[in-house]
């Protein structure tokens, strides 16, 4: 679906940042024998390191990293015709578009490790790098973890180049900035920072670059790790940046002046700054009509509250505040409880634990087994637990409902947070009833107020109140009214379009 050439052309725009040195500072030896010796030492005589000598040319590469077919056809095949091997001749002959000159040993090595072929011409201090990496990417597929009914069905894969090209396909503008960083002293992972010039706040971009540059880790294997490294409040349980595998979600963010970070080898991109409420929004909300979108958003918020507080309220009411139970519920509740030998708190903890167990097992097991296991395990264990008198059946309904509700959140990280945060609230409810739940609620509220996302308030647009942004928060009003970009990312241009020209 995407040809490699296209991707390469895209990459051509911004060459490696570090390869822009002058000739004078070159540390590449003139002599090819010496050069080869140093290289081999550095690579510790790696078994997959190959050299080819053609007259005064030394071609070096790692055969597991480069596309051998292309090497034979477009490089070696063409070079054979050349009479005199000068730098100029070599560059003109080779039928690969991406050729760079490097004057630094370190850069050259990194590039070779990533899939470049190096050509050293004897008695010169430059190294020609021809990028022909192996094409062993997974093909693009559906975003499994964030599915949508209405909207594009494509997700990121593990290749940075493919992912960027996906974004470029949505946003075709020269203003799309792509800045590249390398993180990890051992993994040397490429990281791309994307933003739209003229929308994204320069202050935020600078702040973000400082953050990225200050990172000093030996390895970066996934964007999720980077997410934790650059969060404002690393100790907090709340996610402060969005991890998504949907390119349309990223593009939506970019168009609102946000920053996106893509990491090589990672299927998740990071979007920031992101406020609390935006974790409950999905791109699909914009694809369906506004009353439906508003309804779905309200549903998600209610589901979140239900998921966090429902079990706790059950425990509190049954342990302390029997007065609040309506008359009609008194007998059914009491009857189902009277078989259970444990206090409500313990009962609820047990059941929540079982549900978490099922969920975790379902996530680890292979897909087909996982589904069977989820259903059978849920029904069998649930029914058996009630019949054995371990739990009351009303609690099963409540716990299952709140588990279900926690899965309505579009963001997986937020969803797991909602499940975790139930447990402290359960304890508070089991010890101090409604008072405890309210205490927990206040703690969460203060905590949310403390949090920032890229030094913007996390609870925006509610606090600090930005009433124009409320139109597209818990509800989504018609497109005519939501013409302003959210102020959270401090976009340079506040208006998306002229509202008078939109119906």
């Amino acid at each position: 679906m995407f040809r490699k050439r296209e991707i390469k052309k895209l990459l051509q725009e911004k060459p490696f940042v570090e390869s822009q040195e002058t000739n004078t500072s070159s540390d590449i030896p003139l002599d090819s024998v010496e050069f080869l010796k140093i290289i081999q030492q550095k690579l510790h005589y790696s078994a997959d390191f190959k050299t080819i000598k053609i007259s005064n040319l030394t071609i070096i590469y790692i055969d597991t990293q480069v596309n051998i077919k292309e090497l034979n056809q477009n490089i070696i095949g063409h070079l054979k015709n050349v009479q005199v091997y000068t730098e100029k001749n070599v560059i003109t002959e080779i039928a690969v578009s991406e050729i760079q000159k490097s004057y630094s040993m370190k850069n050259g090595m990194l590039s070779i490790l990533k899939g470049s072929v190096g050509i050293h011409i004897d008695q010169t201090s430059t190294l020609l790098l021809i990028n022909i990496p192996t094409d062993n990417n997974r093909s693009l597929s559906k975003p499994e973890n964030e599915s949508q009914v209405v909207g594009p069905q494509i997700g990121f894969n593990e290749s940075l180049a493919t992912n960027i090209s996906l974004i470029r396909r949505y946003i075709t503008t020269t203003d799309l900035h792509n800045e590249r960083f390398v993180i990890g002293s051992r993994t040397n992972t490429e990281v791309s920072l994307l933003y739209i010039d003229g929308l994204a706040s320069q202050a935020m971009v600078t702040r973000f670059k400082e953050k990225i540059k200050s990172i000093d880790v030996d390895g970066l294997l996934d964007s999720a790790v980077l997410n934790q490294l650059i969060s404002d409040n690393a100790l907090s349980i709340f996610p402060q940046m969005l991890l998504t595998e949907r390119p349309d979600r990223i593009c939506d963010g970019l168009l609102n002046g946000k920053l996106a970070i893509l990491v090589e080898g990672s299927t998740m991109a990071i979007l920031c700054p992101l406020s609390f409420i935006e974790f409950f929004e999905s791109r699909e909300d914009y694809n369906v009509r506004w009353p439906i979108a508003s309804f779905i958003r309200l549903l998600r918020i209610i589901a979140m509250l239900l998921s966090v507080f429902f079990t706790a309220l059950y425990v509190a009411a049954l342990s302390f505040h029997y007065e609040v139970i309506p008359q009609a519920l008194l007998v059914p509740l009491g009857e189902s409880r009277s078989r259970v030998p444990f206090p409500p708190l313990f009962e609820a903890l047990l059941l929540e634990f079982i549900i978490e167990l099922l969920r975790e097992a379902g996530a680890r097991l292979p897909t087909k087994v996982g589904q069977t296991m989820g259903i059978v395990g849920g029904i069998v264990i649930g029914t058996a637990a009630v019949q054995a008198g371990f739990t009351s059946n009303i609690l099963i309904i409540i716990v299952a409902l709140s588990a279900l509700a926690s899965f309505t959140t579009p963001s997986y990280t937020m969803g797991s947070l909602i499940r975790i945060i139930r447990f402290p609230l359960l304890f508070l409810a089991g010890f101090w009833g409604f008072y405890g739940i309210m205490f927990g609620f206040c703690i969460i509220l203060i905590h949310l107020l403390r949090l920032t996302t890229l030094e913007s308030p996390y609870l925006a647009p509610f606090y600090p109140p930005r009433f124009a942004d409320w139109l597209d928060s818990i509800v989504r009003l018609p497109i005519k009214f939501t013409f302003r970009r959210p102020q959270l990312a401090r976009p340079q241009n506040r208006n998306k379009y002229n509202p008078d020209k939109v119906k």
Partner: protein
Amino acid sequence: MEVILKMKPNQLVNAFLVFFIIHTTQVGVGLQGFQRIIYRDAQQDAWISVLISGVATSLLVFIIIKTLELYGSTDLYGIQHDVFGILIGKVLNCFYIFYSLLSFFVVLRNYIEVIQAWIFPELPLWFLSMSMLILVTYGINSGVRSIIGISFFSVILSLWLLLFISYPIKFARIDHLLPMFEADLISLLKGAYNMTFTVLGFEILYIIYPYLKEKKKVMKFAQLGILFTTFIYTALMIVAITYFNGVQLEKTVWATLSLFKIVRLPFIERFEYVAITFWMLIILPNLIFYMWSACRGMERVFKVSIKRSVWLFSLIVIISVQLIITRTQVNHLNDLFAKCAFFVVACYPFILFSFAWLKKKVFNKGIGT
């Protein structure tokens, strides 16, 4: 001590948040049961007393802001220091710190009393005070902007409680309000005086003022806040008078909470249990603001960091909360505090304003003209 404070832009908040600050500091424990105290004096005309007190608070807020405007960007501690000199200023500042702490203590003790009387009679004092102090400490450590955020959410998230006032209205008897204007002026004023404890809180303006952007708009939003509070008080007063009978109202300690007793929802039989625990969110900004203004005083006067003084004050509160155990003691404390607060909040602003004005305009040698 610096009199004029220059705040960093990221510490400043929008002026319209003053509305929420004023409203939350005023609404709190007083609201739970102010009706009977006023009713004792003004009978069925008690709502007029509430209106009078509303006008009075509005005037006081006017004076307070005018005093602050003389300096531009400072707080009470700075003004007292400037007007009365180093020594007397320091004494007065210490007194204000003590007053804030006392307010904190009274609010806390009253809320604990409600919790113990309605829900958990056996939960010990130290536990309840400690759990509230954890919230307060956590809140104060989050900085001024977050504190104001708490007050904002406290208003927004508790507005729905007002909806449930429609339940008692169904059982209200309007003729309880008749005959109107029966009480004489003295009893009306007495009633308004008794509102002191309930309307208290707007003196936070003295401390929060330097943190506000667009100082010109402060007056407008502060007055709006007062208006909103007065509206709620009057509404609750009228509902309580019409719903309860006079004698019954005088016997009802927490009339507002008792109003919720009539609410019955399909899934919650007894709504007052929810209302009382939810009240924590209404109390919280109250507590945090009082504690914060005391700590802020420590920072301004003695250069002790806020984080340290929070711990110190928390310790003092936990120890002193053990001294007041019975309802009689609580009532006594409230009366005593109301008298003290009446002087601080209703009389002192005029004195301070005249001194500050004299110093500024007549002697023309104050700082920051």
